[in-house]
């Protein structure tokens, strides 16, 4: 017993001692949205390989937490899938002397998907709204099979939900029977395993297991999102405290999306790069 305790203490003290003697490396702390998370991670991975003295940590705790961390100066870069709320977060930031600067790194499209066995190929945004408001409850009303519609939505505090809520629901309330999932992969899993389901996911989650529907005649693709014809798209942000100093690591990170390598990585992460590199 005593040996165990002594052993443990030795380990802890060794580890702490190493912290004191290790050289100070440059660190970059990135925190925020779980949607932008994969982009942040992929960028971080690239940067760790390219710059050997750099330490990057990425935490995916949610857009709101990212904003709060930036305001408290707990992180260098906040990833957010929505803009800062003007009356709550922005105001608080300015009060604390933090000037948030937004960098749009990529676009995310919110695609309405159904199970591949569903014969329905396109819907109008009006119809989608009525489905989620509970007014349409059976697929046969839309030209599909006679089966109940299982509506799946992201939870109410997600940025994806907000985009959907604003642009398709036009701020109307969803019905009580709508299922809530907490993430894109879960939404994808629900729709791909439930034949009567309809849901919405980010564009990076379209694959052969779900079928994307045309909304108002437009199919969500890279092109239609970049040229603005697909209605349900939203920008993804990186927020920093003021514009980062040119040449600093933070600046390089925040402008990485402008390089060809950055845009390639963004596309590989499942989002839409801002230009046609």
């Amino acid at each position, binding site marked *: 017993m005593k040996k165990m305790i002594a052993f443990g203490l030795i380990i802890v003290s060794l580890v702490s001692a190493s912290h004191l003697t290790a050289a100070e490396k440059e660190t970059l702390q990135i925190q925020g949205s779980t949607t932008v998370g994969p982009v942040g991670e992929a960028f971080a991975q690239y940067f760790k390989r390219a710059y050997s003295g750099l330490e990057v*940590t990425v935490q995916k705790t949610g857009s709101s937490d990212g904003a709060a961390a930036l305001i408290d100066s707990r992180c260098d870069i906040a990833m957010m899938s929505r803009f800062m709320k003007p009356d709550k977060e922005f105001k608080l930031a300015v009060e604390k002397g933090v000037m948030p600067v937004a960098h749009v790194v990529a676009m995310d499209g919110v695609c309405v998907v159904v199970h591949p066995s569903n014969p329905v190929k396109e819907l109008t945004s009006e119809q989608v709204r009525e489905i989620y408001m509970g007014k349409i409850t059976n697929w046969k009303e839309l030209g599909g099979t006679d089966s109940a519609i299982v509506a799946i939505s992201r939870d109410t505090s997600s940025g994806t939900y907000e985009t959907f809520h604003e642009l398709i629901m036009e701020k109307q309330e969803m019905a009580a029977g709508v299922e809530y999932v907490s993430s894109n992969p879960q939404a994808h899993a629900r729709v791909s395993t439930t034949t009567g389901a309809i849901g919405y996911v980010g564009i990076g989650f379209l694959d052969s297991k779900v079928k994307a529907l045309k909304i108002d005649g437009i199919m969500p693709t890279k092109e239609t999102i970049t040229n603005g014809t697909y209605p349900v798209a939203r920008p993804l942000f990186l927020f920093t405290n003021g514009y980062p100093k040119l040449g600093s690591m933070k600046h390089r990170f925040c402008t990485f999306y402008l390089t060809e390598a950055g845009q390639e990585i963004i596309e590989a992460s499942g989002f839409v790069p801002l230009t046609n590199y």
Partner: protein
Amino acid sequence: MKTKFRTIFDRLFTGVSAFSAVLLTAILLIVLGPMIIKGSTAVFFRGTVEFRKLQRDEFNRGNNTELEKEIEPAEKTRRFVYEIIDSFKRGVDPQSLTDQVRQLNRQYGQELRSKGITGDDYRDLREAARQIRDKLEETFNSADKDLINENIGFVLELKKDERFKGTAVEEMFTIADDFGRAIEEIDLQKREKYAQSLAEVEDILFGSEQMPGLLGPKPGDKLPQTIRLRYGATRWDVAKKLLNDLLYPVQWVEIENGKPLVPQRHSRAEEFEGTRLEPLFAYIENELPEMLKPKLTFYWQYFVDKSIDSHYFGGVGPEILGTILLTITAMIFVIPLGVISAAFLVECSANNLIIKIIRMCINTLAGVPSIVFGLFGLAFFVLYFLPAFGAGPKGSILAASLTLAVLTLPLMIRASEEAIRSVPQTYKEASLALGAGSFKTFVKVTLPAALPGILTGIILSLSRVAGETAPVLFTGAVAMGTLPRSILDPTMTLSYGSYNIATGDNIGMQVPHKQFGMIVTLVLLILLLNAAAILLRSRISKKLKGMR
């Protein structure tokens, strides 16, 4: 009641209760079984030559010369695939041909400028080149065979012009020539369908912008930035699935009006019937083992490697280290606190109000949901407590372990209390009778005797601490970071990692075996820690029994 009924009931009852024990074991197997089976494929699988290439590039593992010897025949077999697709493409993909001639036209302009040709000559030459380019673009995009032949003929006439010899325009002529010959065999009406299908075939073979393919990028193509796109299929099971998608794509067709669509597979080779591409599919089907060289691999380094490209490749080494560090640090805090509190409650307690309040608080602590602990840990330890010691308001192993210690404190106290209480009174009385003070009695007699029970408490707490996600979410876990240098750094953990993959990105969809692998590693780690502690407990019990 008749005796017969009573015996029947009795037997029935014995049977039912035995059944419940069987049920418990069955539940355990049902819960753990699928996960372990699927998770073990992260460590045991048939790895292809692409996997070995990855190991060599990223981890400097494996014999390079041997690998080169393997790669050479694989490349040779693949060459046929590249050639056949290239030659087919020239007739079918108008977009890439258009891009090519545009690029050549621009190149020609640069060449002229660098040669110093200016003025009227420049304008004439550029005009001619532009004309060629436009005619070719029209040709590529048209479906009218006559028009095409006419244009090709016109362009090739211009080939005789001396001025274009040795310049970029000559390449345009080659393209026109190839195109003219290629389209002879192709039904131009089907060209769009060919192009679409060909794009799918290329995506499956070489990888798209988002998903890796069977063979990886063509040699000579620019290497993609994202690591997962740089290699072909690293696992044979993934390769077989991709092969199936390549040869027999699924289409959802309507059988009956008003009924759900039904998936149907048709042969892609039939789609390309009569064209140059048709033999490709049979070739790939037969030669894929030669192209990928699958071999049974035992990837035990999974437990040691760091993850490459957000867990697409690589292993869970840092996460395991993080979980172990976190658990040990939390235990260091909770064991003394728990045992001392239990000692106090047993030895020094009177049944007064204060003790009742303490007990109430301990029990309430046991009932607080883990997410509330997480928030408490963030608000108190990260933002208030540790900064008071100058540690900076960021997540760290220390903050997370403190939170976890508070989480398991009730469990530890309860188990220790049980253990200390169960030590026979005679031990204590004997020790006191020999003249030892109560403190000495406790430390030298009661505590060692209660050690097995305390170890049970430690085991239970270990499992709880290692598996909790919500408390570490805000306080100490990062999705990606370096190995922690000290306890003031945040770390990656298995529990957070599993939660992350499940809810974070599309990696989980593409590599499900990695998801299961992480969870299974966590369960195995907990079981290992449990087993170690159980062994220790039985050794101590034996020693104690010997003392009696």
